[in-house]
């Protein structure tokens, strides 16, 4: 079980012949994922370490039955790659690319409403169902199969959280990096909904950061609908206002986007918020205990 990807997921890597695409496609395959195809326009008919390369996603789907896209193409052509994945009717497109112009994503976002494809990212580490399928760039070995769903706007901070969870004996059902950009295909709420319905997930760890109001919206949804214990961490409690903290989305403007408001909203929804970055697993354990008690 778990959400979005499992043993049966068949991955097509868009940008397989580039250095990042090749490297990570092979690491995904090493982890056990079925990487069935690559796409690089103009390089159809070649192959990368036994993975056949096609000229288009549509051809790759027709010939290999691929249903999940993993996108590594450079920012200027990334929106086109996402739209191509949608046109080929993939179930899921995971876009790792960082630095896609907002204007391109505004258009992609508009087209996604009419598409059956779910987009994860962009500017994300991808997702992993430990022991079954890795579709992304995260280090596979820190994960353990288990019952905690992880959802995060961050990359390396997610690894930190997963490491702490695994060290504490809390394995993961699926870990999803939804991405750090202002416009992303899948929100916290979308993933929370999936975890809520997933029998393999017993609790959820949510990692947010300053900027925007996605965490507040997630908090409101959790308060109304979530039936499973949730713990969270919000990065950027000590960030200075008005500065962009690395992620395009992470900026506190005026009085909105502040860590303290996100934390308050989550706590009001019954979420156990970690008091510091070293106590992530502790917060999850606390949430599970409280969940079991109520």
């Amino acid at each position, binding site marked *: 079980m778990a959400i979005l990807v499992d043993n049966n997921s068949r991955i097509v890597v868009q940008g397989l012949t580039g250095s*990042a695409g090749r490297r990570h496609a092979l*690491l995904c395959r090493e982890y056990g994922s079925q990487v069935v195809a690559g796409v690089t326009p103009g390089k159809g008919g070649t192959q990368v370490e036994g993975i056949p390369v096609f000229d288009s996603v549509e051809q790759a789907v027709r010939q290999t039955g691929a249903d999940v896209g993993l996108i590594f193409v450079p*920012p*200027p052509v990334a929106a086109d790659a996402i739209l191509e994945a949608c046109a080929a009717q993939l179930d899921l497109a995971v876009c790792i690319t*960082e*630095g*896609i*112009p*907002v*204007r391109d*994503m*505004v*258009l992609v*976002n*508009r*087209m996604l409403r009419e598409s059956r494809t779910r987009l994860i990212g962009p500017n994300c*580490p991808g997702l992993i169902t430990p022991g079954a399928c890795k579709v992304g*760039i*995260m*280090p596979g070995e*820190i994960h353990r199969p288990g019952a905690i769903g992880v959802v*995060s*706007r*961050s*990359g*390396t*901070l*997610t*690894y*930190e959280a997963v*490491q702490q969870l695994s060290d504490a004996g809390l394995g993961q059902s699926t870990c999803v990096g939804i991405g*750090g950009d*202002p*416009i992303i295909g899948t929100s916290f709420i979308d993933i929370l909904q999936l975890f809520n319905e997933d029998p393999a997930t017993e609790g959820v760890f949510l*990692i947010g*950061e*300053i900027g*925007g*109001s996605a965490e507040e*919206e997630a908090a409101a949804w959790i308060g109304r609908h979530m039936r499973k214990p949730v713990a969270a*961490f919000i*990065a*950027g*409690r*000590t*960030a*200075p206002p*008005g*500065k*962009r*903290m*690395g*992620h*395009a*989305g*992470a900026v506190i403007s*005026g009085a909105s986007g502040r860590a303290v408001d996100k934390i308050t909203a989550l706590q009001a929804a019954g979420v156990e918020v970690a008091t*510091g*970055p*070293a106590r992530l697993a502790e917060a999850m354990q606390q949430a599970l205990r409280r969940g079991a008690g109520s």
Partner: protein
Amino acid sequence: MKIHEYQAKQLLSRFGIAVPRGLVAKCAAEAVQAADQLGGACLLKAQVYAGGRGKGGGIRRAGSPAEAGSIAASMLHQRLVTPQTGPEGLSVSRLLVEEALEVEAEYYLSLTLDRERGRYVLIACAVGGVDIEETARRAPEQILRIDIDPALGLQPFQARHIALHLGLGGSALQPSAGLLLNLYRCFWELDGSLVEINPLAKTRDGRLLALDAKCIFDDSALFRHADWAELTDHSQYDPLEVRAAQSDIAYIKLDGRIGCLVNGAGLAMATLDMLTECGGRPANFLDVGGGADHAKVVEAFRILLTDAAVEGIFINIFGGIMRCDRIAEGLLEAAGETGCRLPMVVRMAGSRQAEGRRLLEDSGLKVTWADNLADAAACIVRQLS
């Protein structure tokens, strides 16, 4: 990416939006000349990357060219502090000298991204010249928000609707709608993050002009705007931030003593939180990027050490698939080259961890290895206390 008001106005006028006559002055003599050309009376506006200039004395009125000269001399090469700059202010290296107009009414217009909906939104208000956040608090019903379908763009009927909301009907309707359509075209074609006209003025003689303008562009779209590079005024940024940006490193100077080097923005923020929680004060935010390589680590390290306030170094790399020995080699190279003798705490996770640790511990530098974030933070704080 920010630009100055005068540059924003040049862009707007390229898209058919009228702006006051104005000239840029970099010294008092140029201000005198500009005022003379504009007919004597004029406004002098400090060009800085921040708003609230009126409140900080950054917009002054002169009655004659001579007065313009003396005011310019008092404004140029000073640091202007406004409610938006922070106490250190921003340096003023140019002034916009502009004609003073007889204004009948002022409005507010802006285009920006609505993150929650993932769409661009046009915001219009019949009250201009004041902070829009203030209007939003005092009189939210006066603010009109128009969602724009990106596949269609701003439609003429929407533009007329906005103009009517502003009270620009009758003979003013078509020109105002035209201005709004031009504004949207400017925003879209130039990959705007924010384009704001505040105020848009209607003059006694019925003209519509952008009295003030602010443009912020999407840094990610730089590749399709080759001309942007020369628009940036580097004097408005911390020199280290500029240098870091050139290597694609996100660096923000803070006021503490612990120099931080982290990969990934979220982890870098969490690292600052962790240090603060342990009673330490970070000297900077520094994100070398999720997949930092050897060269970037070396440059990041150099940037860190340029800040004289740094007394100790904290490195937190969750490499995962990156090799710790490679990162360690980068650190040693940078430390050797800079002659760094500061205490250093390193937390590194990834492949070849043991090799990375051995390299650092055998280097003869003052390096402490930590296995997790909490220990690492406590360690550097202890070493500096």
